[in-house]
């Protein structure tokens, strides 16, 4: 440790390109908004939830590492800390959705609130005042906690104070409770709420499971980019990728378990107020996506990621991550857009514009912030354990 203080001077590139993509996307968003408001809001919400899930999933990853006092993940944790700290920016990117009002959430329509029996009965929860209070609470809490973890960890880069690790472990316990409730209710309010007649208590967990899969995809891909950029295979070790790959595999199985359980109970009980969700997703081309997800989101990645040879090969693992991230987008598309386009999926300009706009700004802000400090939490007392971490697979690889 003495001859090397683990200061990485390399910077991750691509910032200006993403900023350009964001600006281009924003212009295209305006165009698509002029053309068709409904298309725009459907697409914008889908892309927003995709990038929000990366941030909330990363937030989850950070506090779980602190709760578990894990050493293996120290060097790759900075990526997650930084992307979780995009959550305050996500609040700004959410403004168009809020301004959308009843074009996004149909129950905000005064007529529906007064005359629709089911919506009327849910008035205690589904009312605008409470909706916006909740929304402010989600983003407020996410901002406070995500910035706390990033700033404390960066402070530790300088001070090397182990007491900060103890402190973060304690805060992580509170963060877990806050996160579980806020993300669940965000999914209830802004995804399940698109169809105010339907409900599922599993829904929040389903969104959570997808967000963690997405988070691991992002973490692995970014760490792979950092490994290539810095050339430090001793810091971004194959064992780290292998273990992140295992967790990706496990959480993808968890997503399947939750998705299947939700479907299974509804299908078996066969009650009209529950089955309408799948009824909507059996119409037109939605049916194709409904049948595709179990194969492409679960079965193929399951078999692909099973072998450790794949998980230890950074290129092969990255291919799996790109595939799964795409599936996570299609999954969100399938959750959100049938509420806007009943007849079938139509992927168009508005979708591309929203991905470019939100993704461009999201990645630009992420890269800028990541480059503004050391690329790894070099002050973490568990760094030494992380650098010698060996997950016990016998290989002839040179580390």
């Amino acid at each position, binding site marked *: 440790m003495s001859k090397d203080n683990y200061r990485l001077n390399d910077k991750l590139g691509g910032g200006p390109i993403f900023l350009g993509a964001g600006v281009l996307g924003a212009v295209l968003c305006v165009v698509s908004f002029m053309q068709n408001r409904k298309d725009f809001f459907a697409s914008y919400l889908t892309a927003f939830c995709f990038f929000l899930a990366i941030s909330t999933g990363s937030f989850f990853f950070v506090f779980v590492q602190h709760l578990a006092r894990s050493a293996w993940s120290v060097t790759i944790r900075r990526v997650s800390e930084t992307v979780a700290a995009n959550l305050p920016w996500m609040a700004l990117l959410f403004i168009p959705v809020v301004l959308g009002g009843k074009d996004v959430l149909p129950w905000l329509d005064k007529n529906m609130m007064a005359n629709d029996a089911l919506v009327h009965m849910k008035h205690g929860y589904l009312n605008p005042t409470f909706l916006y209070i909740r929304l402010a609470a989600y983003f407020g809490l996410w901002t406070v906690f995500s910035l706390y973890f990033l700033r404390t960890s960066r402070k530790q880069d300088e001070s090397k104070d182990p007491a900060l690790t103890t402190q973060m472990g304690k805060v992580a316990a509170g963060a877990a409770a806050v996160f579980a409730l806020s993300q669940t209710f965000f999914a209830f309010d802004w995804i399940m709420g698109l169809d105010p007649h339907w409900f599922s208590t599993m829904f929040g967990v389903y969104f959570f499971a997808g967000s963690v899969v997405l988070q691991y995809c992002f973490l692995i891909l970014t760490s792979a980019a950092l490994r290539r950029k810095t050339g430090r295979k001793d810091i971004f070790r194959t064992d780290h990728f292998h273990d992140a790959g295992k967790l990706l595999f496990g959480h993808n199985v968890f997503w399947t378990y939750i998705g*299947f359980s939700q*479907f*299974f109970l509804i*299908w*078996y009980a*066969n009650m009209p107020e529950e089955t309408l969700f799948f009824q909507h997703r059996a119409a037109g081309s939605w049916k194709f996506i409904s049948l595709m997800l179990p194969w492409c989101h679960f079965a193929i990645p399951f078999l692909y990621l*099973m072998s450790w040879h794949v998980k230890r090969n950074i290129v092969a693992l990255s291919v799996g991550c790109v595939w799964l991230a795409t599936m996570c987008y299609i999954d969100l598309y399938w959750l959100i857009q049938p509420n806007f386009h009943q007849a079938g999926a139509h992927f168009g300009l508005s979708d591309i514009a929203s991905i470019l706009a939100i993704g461009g700004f999201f990645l630009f802000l992420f890269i800028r912030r990541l480059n503004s400090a050391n690329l790894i939490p070099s002050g973490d007392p568990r760094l030494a354990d992380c650098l010698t971490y*060996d997950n*016990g697979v*016998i*290989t002839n690889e040179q580390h």
Partner: protein
Amino acid sequence: MEKTISDVKPKVFGVLAQFASPKDVYHAAEKVRDKGYKKWDVHSPFPIHGIDGAMGLGDSRMGWIALFSAMAGCFGGFGLQYWINMFAQPVVIGGKPLNPYPAFVPVTFEPGILFTAFGCLIGMLVLNGLPRWYHALFTSKNFKKFSDDGFFICIEARDPRFSLNETRKLLEDIGGRNIEVVED
């Protein structure tokens, strides 16, 4: 003529050497590995992290055994339900089709897990050569420390590179103590 005990000539099983610490036995194992020995083993009271790499062991076959057990369980579980519902005793339940495959998922999954557990247990025993009543190393008094504080390397006589003098010398050179020839 009937054989008596005294007629049975003891056969050399291998050479046993003791090491002072997990670290010593780890580095000794690397040297035995590099000499090209194949039929030998390390004995320790607890698992030593990375010892499999130091011994040059290959990838375990357990993964494949587990995979095929799991597939046998899954296909068996699904096939059993399919055969019952479609052919042996077709009954319409809850207005569902005769082949309500989502309903078969839990019972497809469970034998998959069960068979994997069986496969892993039996596979582990077979690959380890267990169960057995007797092992030649139990004749060594000193070896009893393997379950207390002793770290051992035993190179077996069936290894093609084994030679009583050279193997003994190798174990001495790499820091082995209390070297003894174990007879079967």
